[in-house]
């Protein structure tokens, strides 16, 4: 009989591990609120100013980020909508603060932001429109964020043996970083309008 508690503890431990692995495989969580005719997105635990892009920013480069918001009905029947926004982030080497330019007509810009504030500003600026779905219909909001890859302009050498050798001896470039988030299933009827508070 002494073995049963040990088996239970072991099973619980496995359950915790499996749950943790399952959770880590899921996209991060995206909070969605309604603000008038738009959705306002936030994700306090989502950080895209990290890793290699952050290293490039600290090296004085401007890094373009592409955000794609997808609003998808849960059980079909409705239209999936997409929204894309591009932000160019740079890091002020003297003030040690981030600056962002949101491309568009006209472009919007902000500066003197901490990393967390810069990330929040980008998400806050997305503002996708409300989905054209019945109020009782469930939908999911997905957010993808990626860094535009460095462009390699043609060298102008033409096709020579040297350029071929150079080309084939290059290490495979690492894919540009990409992050994905998704909300829980939502219904317009459940979303409180923040602008009316």
């Amino acid at each position: 009989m002494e073995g049963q508690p040990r088996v239970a503890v072991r099973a619980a431990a496995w359950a915790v591990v499996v749950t943790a692995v399952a959770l880590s495989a899921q996209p991060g969580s995206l909070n969605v609120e309604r603000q008038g005719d738009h959705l306002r997105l936030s994700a306090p635990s989502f950080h895209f100013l990290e890793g290699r892009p952050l290293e490039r920013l600290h090296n004085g480069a401007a890094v373009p980020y592409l955000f794609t918001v997808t609003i998808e009905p849960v059980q079909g029947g409705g239209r999936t909508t997409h929204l894309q926004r591009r932000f160019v982030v740079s890091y002020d080497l003297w003030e040690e603060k981030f600056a962002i330019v949101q491309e568009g007509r006209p472009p919007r810009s902000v500066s003197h932001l901490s990393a967390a504030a810069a990330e929040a500003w980008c998400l806050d600026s997305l503002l996708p429109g409300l989905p054209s779905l019945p109020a009782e219909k469930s939908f999911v909001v997905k957010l993808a964020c990626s860094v535009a890859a460095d462009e390699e302009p043609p060298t102008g050498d033409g096709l020579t043996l040297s350029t071929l050798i150079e080309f084939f001896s290059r290490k495979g470039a690492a894919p540009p970083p990409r992050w994905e988030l998704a909300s829980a299933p939502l219904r317009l009827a459940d979303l409180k309008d923040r602008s009316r508070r």
Partner: protein
Amino acid sequence: MKPTSLLLIVFLPLAVPVAALGQQPGASGAEANVNSRYVVEKVSLEGIDDAAVGKSLRADMDKLVGQKYDQDAVNALVERLRKELRGFSVDARVRRGDTQDHVSVVFKAERNLNALYMHASPLVYHSQEAFSATLGFAVETHHNYASVNWTTTADELVERNEGWRLRYEHRRVGTSLVQVGVGYDWFHPAFLAPTRAALALSPDVPGVYRTRQDFAPSVSVLPLNGVKFTVGLSLQNLDLDVPTPRTEHAFAFTADAQAQGKIVAAGGYRHAISAAYSLRRATPALESDFVYTRHLFAGDYTLTKHRHAFLFRGRLGTIDGAAPLFERYSLGNSYLLRGWNKFDVAPLGGSRLAHGSLEYRYRPFQIFWDFGSVWDAGQTATVRHGIGIGLAGRATSVGGWFFSLAFPVRMNDVGPVVMFGIRR
């Protein structure tokens, strides 16, 4: 109201939307970079010698100084560096400057740990020696470097050296300060009539050989940046036909020291200095058939300011003992005593060498004066002079290019020597 004012009033409202149509919807990365308001105070290159970069590119890099930081301009220079520096990856980093609101730009080159590249240098034409060429491949992976080269050159020794050169180096033995290497060369030399005729009159000089093989293991230490010491062995087998077919050995200890440095002084003056010493000692202790000691000192100095460059090169060498022909010094090629034919200077080379060269360059234009002598111990040295003009640059990824016209300074037969090619 003036007609021009009327035109402005009519067309100005139209001009604004037209100008707006030409704009992109958003700012490019460079325009959006908050650091573009800072002034560049310094530009530097790390990870590779400045000399590996062409002068025009280096000049364009220096033009960033004093300007507002422009990411597009920096990216364009990074691309040009990537083109010039085969086998290297290049990146740019911007740092705070020493002065408020200034930044410094660092171009950082790193040798690719996994790279395959082709050598095609030197490729030289000399109107008295015809073509000399070296072609081959090199592979570099995780501090291991291996190369295979085929060469045919009459530009180094008395003989035309034709054959294969294989080399392997491990460039990090526990630490990057220590390297080991081994080379194997196989040559089928060709000796021309002037050398053979001179040999008949010089019984003290060892004769010609049909093939030459060299096995050369070595260990190098790099205690400081720009300083390298190498010790090793050169185990050479020479196949001779005359007077009887046989193989003779030239087994030697070798020691080399190299140092180079650069100084950027006030007023835009750049000083580049390099010095090298090479010792080869063939001794009975290694069961060598040839017994000799060979010393060679070489020094180069370059002073550069803007587009002007002044170069001085000097070489001194001596051989004690009976060294085989490939060890003897020769003058009269595309870089030593230019303008002369090596067979007119010394068809057998010599055991003593003294050579100097003064050169002035403005952009690609060059004018030079070479002087020197090779002679044997006990003989009187005859100093010869060569002068020339030409074009030179470093516009290729395999080395610097040149096109020179040189004349021997003597009373008769002052026909020009034409030389062109590329050389690292």
